[in-house]
């Protein structure tokens, strides 16, 4: 019964689109986790950037120029909020999970404050086409997800920076004894994550043409971390691949889609997600052991 619907092209595109928002962020998170960190603030950050971007859009008025400016702004905002996470973690020597737990709270609260907890709706008529549009019958966010994955892969596997990220996450001391500026490398992973959040914020807010500050991105950190971990990236850092993350995100999307099509209570999806994270982590531990 599930499979009856599952393979129709429309469902596949759908799953891919649903997956692409957290998938894009998971690409950035892959860098953070490989470097030995974690970013719990991504869910709040997407809401904050989403709200700010839609407000900016409404301020700029209609037209494609406004849209282009807003997209640029969301990337810049991603850089800024990512840099804040990075700075606290690197300069303050605060464990990444506690630094980003704190900013998770701060970013969400600012989102609610700025929007007065009310939905922010864009009045730009072109904006919905950005995240809701298609190219060659494939949704734009899906293209973007794949494009960014390729860029991410190139950086991770084929650039010196990517090599350094792996080295820092594997053994920070060895990295610093290899003339690598570990603080810079670690800091930049948070900026990269911020950029992907910025891009995902555009996709999400333009798809819905609005942002609901209370629940936009709520619990995204779970989906994102799950995608990365299912993709084989070790939570203790040092190794992982972008393609693993892409596959992890898609697997997660398929699981959710199957559960939905099978009529399993949507409330159990959180259980599945939690268990999937645990199993992935435990399997990694098992593997490392042998």
């Amino acid at each position: 019964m599930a499979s009856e619907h599952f393979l129709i092209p429309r469902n596949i595109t759908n799953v891919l689109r649903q997956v692409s928002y957290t998938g894009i962020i998971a690409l950035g998170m892959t860098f953070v986790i490989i470097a030995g960190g974690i970013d719990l603030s991504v869910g709040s950050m997407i809401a904050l950037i989403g709200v700010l971007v839609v407000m900016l859009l409404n301020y700029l008025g209609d037209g494609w120029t406004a849209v282009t400016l807003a997209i640029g702004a969301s990337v810049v905002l991603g850089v800024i909020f990512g840099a804040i996470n990075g700075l606290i973690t690197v300069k303050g020597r605060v464990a990444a999970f506690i630094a980003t737990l704190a900013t998770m709270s701060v970013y969400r609260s600012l989102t609610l404050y700025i929007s007065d907890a009310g939905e922010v709706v864009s009045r730009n008529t072109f904006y919905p086409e950005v995240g809701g549009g298609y190219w060659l019958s494939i949704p734009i966010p899906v293209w973007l997800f794949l494009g960014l994955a390729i860029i991410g892969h190139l950086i991770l596997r084929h650039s010196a920076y990517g090599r350094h990220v792996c080295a820092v996450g594997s053994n920070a001391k060895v990295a610093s004894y290899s003339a690598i500026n570990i603080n810079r490398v670690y800091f930049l992973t948070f900026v990269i994550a911020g950029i992907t959040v910025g891009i995902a914020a555009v996709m999400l807010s333009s798809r819905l043409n609005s942002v609901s500050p209370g629940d936009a991105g709520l619990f995204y950190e779970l989906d994102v971390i799950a995608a990365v971990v299912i993709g084989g990236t070790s939570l203790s850092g040092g190794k992982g691949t972008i393609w693993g993350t892409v596959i992890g995100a898609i697997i997660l999307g398929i699981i959710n889609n199957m559960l939905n099509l099978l009529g399993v209570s949507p409330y159990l999806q959180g259980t599945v997600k939690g268990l999937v994270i645990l199993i992935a982590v435990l399997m990694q531990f098992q593997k490392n052991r042998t």
Partner: protein
Amino acid sequence: MSKPQTALLELRHIHKSFGAVQVLHDINVSLVAGEVLGILGENGAGKSTLLKIISGIYHASSGEVCVDGKVVSIKDASSAKALGIAMIPQEFNLIPSLNVFENIFLGNELKRHGWLDKRTMREKTQSLMALLETQLPSDAMIEDLSVAQKQMVEIAKALVNDARILIMDEPTTVLTAQEADVLFALVDKLKAKGVTVLFISHKLKEVKRLCDRLLIMRDGEVVALEKVSELDEHDMARLMVGRELSQVFPAKTVGGQELALNVSGLTVPNLLSDINLQVHCGEVLGIAGLMGSGRTETAEAIMGLRKRSQGQIEVFGEVVNIKSLQDAVEHKLAYLSEDRQGSGLIMNFDLSENITLISLNKYKKGLIQHQKTRERAEHYRKLFSIKTETVSTPLVNLSGGNQQKVYLSKWMDTEPKILILDEPTRGIDVNTKKEIYHFIRELTEQGIAVIVISSEMEEVIGLAHRVMVMREGKVQGELCGADINEQQIMYLAAGLREQQDSNNAQGKRA
């Protein structure tokens, strides 16, 4: 070896390996109650490993430990404790956030009605401190204590159980002469009470003073087990080092004239004071000294890994300001650290990734040219005959010696002009050692200036044109030519003939 009574502790055919590296080979010892056994050996000979097996921290790969004639299985610290075995480890083993009495009784707390009986614990602490002739409030926090005071707490912690077998791993390294005397007096008392003591030390004099018998180890094997009275300090040193040097070491080159590195007045607060050293192109400078004498710190301070408060560094006659390792690498310095796994290599990277990690910019044209990095790694694999299938093998799968060769390749790929090698042969087999020694010679032939820091006496002797001996963060003396021998180095390192030797060295340096 006479056995007047049944053995309290007996080790039979103990073997131990970590992965592929065999650290202990067939160790057999038998000790009676009240005996003090000294254990001597070079760094990495396996002394600590042996004692950790007795105290349940490591498990022997094969062999038996017997207590009171019965084979026992020492699974962990608590089963050792139950057998009356206590250990004062080489590294500090105290909880900094707890105070003195809490540490002494940690895992062994006295209780009344289920709650902690702090009063009795404080009282017992005081009486232990009295026994150790140490003034120390039982509520002092560990983080506020001096190194020697901490050591006293360690000792008290080992004593609190009324141990029958007491293991001390270099307990006196951080004690002053007076504090050490208190400890020795205490050992005498314990001995009289029938406690068996195993005692590791690099200080030959104190071993002579304290022990009944000596176990001398080399490369994980027992080379001698003798009454102390039958050995003098020279015998001990000979037995510890005891290898024919001729085949292993290549003949020394002449050594160059051009001054490559000139360090003057190098000071790092609390660790180093006023270090001066020079190395010429094509020359090998050896740095010898005991553990903690500051050799590693010297190298790290030169390389910008430690902040120095004073000192000037000249590279090829030019004063340079090295603030970070990046700066040092730019000035063609290289530093192979003593901790291969901890600060040298990324274990889940493969050969080519490790070898090109520092020199990656050479292989970049926008993106990394992986083929080029692999070719380069292949070059080193051949050069050093690194034993591995391919250059894509992760480092974990290589033996220690081969890892060391990869580490060396990694620094060679930066094309250094000045190379500092810290314990370059730690934990590797004789054959690999030989290969590395020959390679060092080749480097000097190419005019590279080399500094070799080593705790293996023969290594320094076999390689260096000049040897600088350090002690307690200072240069204790410098030797060259025929003066480079075990005795001279030992004496300088242990501060035995300070007067004479420092005069000697001063004369040389001038």
